Every structure is written in C-alpha cells, then in structure tokens.
C-alpha cells in the first residue's frame, strides 16, 4: 500500500514538472539579440512629433552557410530596422511587427540618441530602458552628432560587428582623453543628484583618413570611407542638450570631476612652435565650497602627475631640475587655463552646472541650499572660483635628450 502511494507521488511530481512546460524558456536561435539601440526625433504621419526607435540585431543566420562551420565574416551581419511611435514603447511594438524574432535586450551595449531628440529632452525615453527587465544598467549612453542612423549604417572596419567596433573604441576612450564613458546608470544618478548636470559623449561619423593618401589599397583602408569616432561631449541642462564641448574643455571638465586619470597635454614651454607632450599618470582634485556674504565661491585644487612622452626641442636639458620645474609649471598653467575656460563657458554659454558645484554646496550648506535649489543653474552663473594646479613630472622615460642630439 505504501509503495503505491510512493509511486503515485512520484508520478504526480514528475507530471507537475512536465506541466510547467518550460515556461519562460526560449531557444537562443529564436532571439534577435539587440546590440545597438538608438532613437531619433521624427515627424509622425499624423503630423505629431514622435520618436523612432532603431535597432541593430545580430543576423546569426547570415553567417552560417549550410554544411559549413560558422564563419562570421559576412559584412551584413547586422540587421537594422526602425519604427516610429509616439512613445518608445509604441515604436518598439511597431518594430516587433517586422521582426521574425523576439527582440532580446539583455545584450544591448549602448544606446545612441540623435542630437535633435537630445535637444528636446531625453528623460521620457530613457525611462523605457531603465524600466526594461532585460536591459542592462551598464549600457553606455551616447549622443550622435547628427542622427542615430548615420552611425548605425557604418560598416565595421576592424571588428566583425559594428557594435564591437563602437564598444571597443569607447571603452578605451579614457586613454585618449574622453574620460570614462557614462552608462545609463551614471545618467540616472546624475539626474537624481541635486546640483549636477549630465555630460554625454558625442559619436560622429568622420572621414577615415586624409584624402591625400591616394589609392593605397583602398578596400582595406579607411580612405574615402566614414568611420565612427568619439568627437566632443554633449552638455546637458537637466535632460536637454544645450551644447557641446571640444577636447580642451572636456579635459578641463575631467580634471575637476576627478576623471582625468589618463590622457595627454601639450605645452609650449620655451618656443612658440615647439611642443612638449605629456601623458597624465594620475590626477586628484579637491573642491571646497564656501559662502561669503551671500556670494558663492569654490576653491578648486588639482594635483597632476605626468610623464614626458615627447619633447620636440632637442636643446632641452632635461637633466636639470629647473628645466623640469619650468615645464611642470607651464603644464600646470595650461591645465589651469583649460579648467577656467571650461568653467567660464559652462557659466556663460551653457548655464549648466556640469561640474556638480551645486552638490558640494548642497552637502556643506544644506540650509542655504534649500533657498537656491530651484534656481541653482542661475546662481551657478555667478559662482566665483579660484583654481590652483600642482603638476609634477614623474619621469622623462629614461631619456634626457633625444637620441639624435649631437653634443658639439
């Protein structure tokens, strides 16, 4: 009798397991893996303003010919599609109508926003992605100089997939001055923190090589083609893009937001046309806010460690302490110049506190902050500041004179 009950229990248990019928399971080949997503401002058919959602999904099928081991060499290995709607979700559903596969957002590595849309405000669109179950918070957010499609339609030059091409480039952006690329999470934090406005990097399709390279193995070089490149940063005021910064301003911005951990600086210490190039090894900053007689003041202190990467002046006596001292002083001045220029532009032109001065006041003067909270970006324009930069040359990379220098 007992045995029968045990058998019955086993049968019921196993059947229950079967009845779940692989709920939630989806075979990997039924997925359309979205690797790039972007959105742009468009005019809808009914004349209203709308949004278009553009995605690139992996075309795994294109890469596998029958009877062959898969080789992902096909150029057309991404499928691009776009759909319009009044909201992202509507656009998404319209897009779904075209796709034979279930769109999978778990591997979306970045979201590109068209600059036209960025100028109108992006919070309402980011909201869809921040709520999405599959979407990763660490997906990068980038702004396209023109439209999203201008970036997405480019062919990869080195990597197999366009998303890898962009991803690998922006992940190394720190090495050549753009600082760390913010993710969706960073953006959401910026929007949540009081007294700090977002800055997002700008992607642009630029000509690959100078045209005068001629006919040098054209199909494999970038001559005559556009390639994707990071070019400047978009400054936001709340969720609206208000302008863009060039590389010098970006550096100034990075120094006082403690993100300039790598990158380069050019200075002309002695002659007008002879440069010394320095690589940043590390930088630290300190910002002390103070309110004196109702006037807002920040004291900015930056200390930078650099090493000397290139000296175009053969006569430089780098073995002498005072020469190095002079170069580092000049470098400090150059950095200070950049910082001041950036703050100046932010105050006068963008009118947006991208440095987060407001958050420093918020922390230190929480009482006074309540009064200016709503109008901080106006107050920001009147903030006075004083910048101090210390720069130290850590190394000349073992060479004190160029190899070619002949001593007479």
């Amino acid at each position, binding site marked *: 009798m007992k045995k029968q009950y045990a058998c019955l229990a086993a049968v019921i248990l196993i059947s229950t397991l079967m009845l779940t019928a692989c709920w939630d399971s*989806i075979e990997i080949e039924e997925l359309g893996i979205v690797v790039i997503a972007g959105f742009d401002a468009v005019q809808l058919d009914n004349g209203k303003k709308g949004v278009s959602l553009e995605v690139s999904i992996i075309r795994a099928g294109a890469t596998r010919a029958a*009877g062959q081991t898969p080789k992902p060499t096909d150029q057309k290995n991404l499928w691009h599609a776009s759909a319009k709607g009044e909201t992202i979700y509507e656009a998404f559903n319209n897009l779904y109508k075209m796709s034979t596969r279930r769109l999978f957002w778990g591997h979306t590595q970045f979201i590109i926003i068209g600059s036209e849309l960025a100028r109108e405000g992006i919070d309402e669109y980011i909201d869809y992605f921040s709520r999405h179950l599959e979407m990763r918070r660490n997906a990068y957010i980038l702004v396209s100089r023109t439209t999203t499609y201008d970036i997405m339609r480019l062919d990869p030059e080195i990597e197999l997939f366009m998303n890898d091409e962009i991803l690998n480039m922006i992940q190394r952006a720190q090495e050549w001055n753009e600082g760390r690329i913010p993710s969706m999470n960073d953006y959401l934090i910026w929007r949540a923190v009081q007294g700090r406005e977002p800055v997002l990097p700008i992607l642009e399709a630029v000509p690959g090589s100078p045209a005068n390279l001629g006919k040098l193995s054209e199909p494999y070089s970038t001559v005559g083609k556009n390639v994707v490149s990071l070019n400047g940063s978009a400054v936001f005021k709340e969720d609206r893009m208000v302008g863009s910064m060039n590389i010098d301003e970006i550096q100034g911005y990075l120094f006082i937001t403690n993100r300039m951990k790598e990158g380069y600086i050019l200075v002309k210490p002695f002659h007008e046309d002879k440069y010394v190039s320095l690589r940043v090894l590390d930088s630290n900053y300190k910002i002390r806010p103070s309110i004196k007689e109702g006037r807002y003041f920040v004291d900015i202190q930056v200390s930078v460690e650099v090493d000397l990467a290139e000296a175009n002046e053969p006569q430089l006596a780098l073995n002498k302490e005072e020469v190095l001292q002079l170069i580092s002083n000049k470098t400090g001045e150059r950095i200070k110049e950049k910082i001041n220029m950036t703050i100046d532009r932010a105050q006068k032109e963008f009118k947006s506190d991208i440095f987060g001065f407001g958050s420093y006041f918020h922390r230190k003067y929480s009482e006074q902050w309540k009064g200016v909270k709503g109008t901080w970006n106006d107050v920001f324009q009147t903030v006075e500041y004083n910048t101090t930069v210390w720069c130290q040359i850590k190394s000349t990379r073992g060479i004190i004179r160029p190899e070619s220098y002949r001593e007479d």
Partner: protein
Amino acid sequence: MFGRKKNQTKSSNFTSEVKQKHSSSPWADIPVTEDYDKNVNNIRKICAGCGDIVEREIRMEGLGGLRVHLFFIIQMVNLDYINGNIILPMVAFKKENCKDNVLDIIQERVLTVFQVSREKKILNAVYEILKGSAILIIEGENEILALNLQNRKKRSIEEPSVEKTIRGPREGFIEDIFVNMSLVRTRLPIPELKFEMMEIGHRTRTRVTVAYVEGIAKVEILNEIKKRLSGVNVDMVIDTQDLTEYITDSAYSPIVQTEFTERPDKTVGSLVEGRFAILVDGTATIILTPTTVWDFIQASDDYHTNFYYASFTRMLRVATILITLFFPAIYVSIITFHQGVVPTELLISIAMQREGIPFPAAVEAVLMILTFELLREAGARLPIQIGQAVSIVGAIVIGESAVMAGIVSPAMVIVVAITGIASFTIPAYNFTLTLRLMSFVLLFLGSFLGLFGVMIGGMILLTHTASLKSFGIPFLTPAAPLFSLKDIFVRAPWTMMNKRSRYLAQDKTRQKT
C-alpha cells in the same frame, strides 16, 4: 528513503548459522557408517552425474587387504600427490607392531599429506571433494579422511586493469582469495591483521573474508559488518557487487556507497586507516568499507607523487565532479533561459552555431549524451581489436558529421566531450557512473526549470548525499561532519598526516611527533 528494511538482518551467532545454512539437502543428516559399501554407494548416489568426480579403490596389504576408496576431481587436485603421497605409501605400507586404530595409522604413518581432516557426515565429505580435496573411505571406519590437495587453476598476478598508476606498485588482485590474502599479508606482516573467513551462498558456497587490523579498526563496525554478512541469505555470490547490494546501508540510493579496489597497496593503506576489506573468492575486486564520498576521488597516484601536484589533481577531481554533474545542465539552462548571463560575444558565437539546428538545446544535449553513452558502452563491450573502430566512428561520424549536417551545434559537442572526459578522471568507476546518471536528472530539471531547477536538483542531491551513511559513518565525513581535511581537497605531506582519522580508528597515532 532508500534504506533497506530494518528487520532484514537479524543478529545471530555468526559461524554456526553459516554452517546450518547449507543443510537443507535430504542427505544432510546421513552419517558415515562402518558399512564400507554403503558409504561408497551413498557418495556415488549423491555425485551421480558429476562426470568430473573420479574414484579409485586400493587394497592395503599392510593392513590385511583393507579396502580404501578414493574420490577426487582430477582437475582440482595435484595428481602427482595422489600418486606419490597417497596411493604409493598405501600400497607399499608394511604392517608394524602398533596398537593404534586403523584411522590413526593411515593418517599418521601412511599418508604424506599435510592437511587431513575427518568428516562424520557423508554430505560434508562430498563438499570436501568439490572444494578440491581427495577423500578416503576406509573399510570398517565411521569417519572419512579428507585430504586437502587443492590445486586450483589461477591466472598469474598482473597489473590492475582498471586502477592504473604511473608510479605505484603494479600488483593487482586475482580471482583466488588465498592469493589475494597473501598479497595483503605480505605488505602487512603483523598478527594484528585478521582475516575472518566465512561462506556465503547456499549453492556457490563462496568464501568471503573480512580483513581488518585489530587495535585500529573499531569493533562496533566489525560487528555490524559481520551481522550484515551473516544476514545475507542467498544461493549465489559471484562478485563483490552482489554482496555490496546486500550489505550497504541505503541499497536503493542512486549514489553508490562502496569503494572497490583491485590494488593490494590501496587495501593495506585502507586497513591501516582503520577500514575493513571484504574479499570475495572468485573476483579480483574487493570491497573497502566504510566508504565516504571522498574515497572515490583519492587515486593511488596521489600518494605516489609530490604533494603539491597531488593536491592540484585532487582539486581538479573535485572540479570534475562538479563538471560531470552540472555542466550540461547549466549549459542548457543558460542558453534556453538565461541568455543574459553569457558574455555577448560568446552568446553571438553560440547563436551562430545554433542557427538552423532543428532541435531545442535540451533535446540536442540528450541526443549527444546518449550518443556518448552508446559509444562508451560499445567500446566496453567490444574486443580491443574492434574497439578502435568505435572510436573512429565516434570521432568522425558523430563529432564531425553531426555538426556538418546541422544536427547538433559544435558548442554542444564541446560540452558533452568535456563532460565525458571530466567523468573519466574520477578514479572510482562506479562513482563515475552514478555521476553520469545524476547529470541526466539535473539536465532534465535544467531544461524544464532553468538554473532554478538545477539549483533545486543540486540541493536535493547534496541533502541526500549528506544523509547517507556507510556502516554508521556519514557519507560526507570528514568534510561534513568536519574532521581533519588533510586528505580531502588537498593531499597534505606525509609528515603532516600524523593522526589517523578520528571517525574510523581506535588508535589514532600514526606518527610519533
């Protein structure tokens, strides 16, 4: 859950029961009488149809023409001894002045045979013949002399075929229990090494020996082993496996709980640790017990190599247990449920490979694993010469062509191959089979419920494993309950292993410090 019924084994007087067990024959109680012809006829009747039993009558002129009848099996005795040590002295015997009875005269003065016993029952005498003795029925005597001239055919001692080592001893057990005992005794020449003999099986009358080292091994465990062995009441014991299934604690559990070995050195190591060896006549593998799960991952080579490398391989084997159990299940559940956790490039690569595959990943996995098991089984059944063909078919047809034809994806082939190879690194073959079986269950759970199912399955498996006991020793000792971990995930240097395992041994000192 998988335990045997509690009342199956009854405690009883060990040796007497074994003898009684064989006495169900109608001839059982017929004694040897002084009627010579009747005795001979009785034996002929019992052995009617046994073509291998031969007989011979001798008249001993030295004892006044006394008739003596000899029964034996030619192939099981040494014929030279029959001729030279029995027949010749009997025929040549000359009567001397002495008052002893005939039996004593024959045993002490005539026969030049070392081992002689006297049987009072006809049936026992017949069993002596069958074991390889020659029996002598002497006219007018009510006892039969049984002369042990056993000369069993056996193969020579060879290197173990399953448990190979790179540097260890090359001797392996053979099918003869006495040779096996001698192999152990040679390595452990102390009187504390005990071999307790018994016979199990009404019909096979298999000799079974429990070996242990007195003073180290725990008496409670010995008593429990004896109790269970004496409770085994079957007609046939051919191998250690059938005996195992009668005496393990949870015989119906899918997890094997017995360690087998065919290595005398390993046996000696286990005996000195305080474990017991059960030797069965007629098989080259013996049982080592009590067993813990860690015994399955301790290979002989661990003790024959440098402890750093031995520790590395030990950890590798722990990893292979996990790989064998979980790898296919985790792979299938990740690519059908949790695509988000795979690195993007790997996901794209797998997606490309899966493109155009007609089956779901779970079916694909089952197909491949079944194919692998088929190949393994075919390889095991086939003679070595043809075995080559199987591996070629396996490698080329299944591996290459199945992928080319788009039936399975290369990734799945890799998963199954890694799982298969991983399972072969576990020294205990029976444990490997358990793991492979369990990995099927986990794969099934994983394909229905995803990683959640794999997790649930793993937890049930772990809980069940932890609940098992082998002769009173929890199956996960010494990791859970925690004792010394010096010989589990690592193999500590010999100089540091100066205590015997507390849970097994009475005498814990191995090394005076």
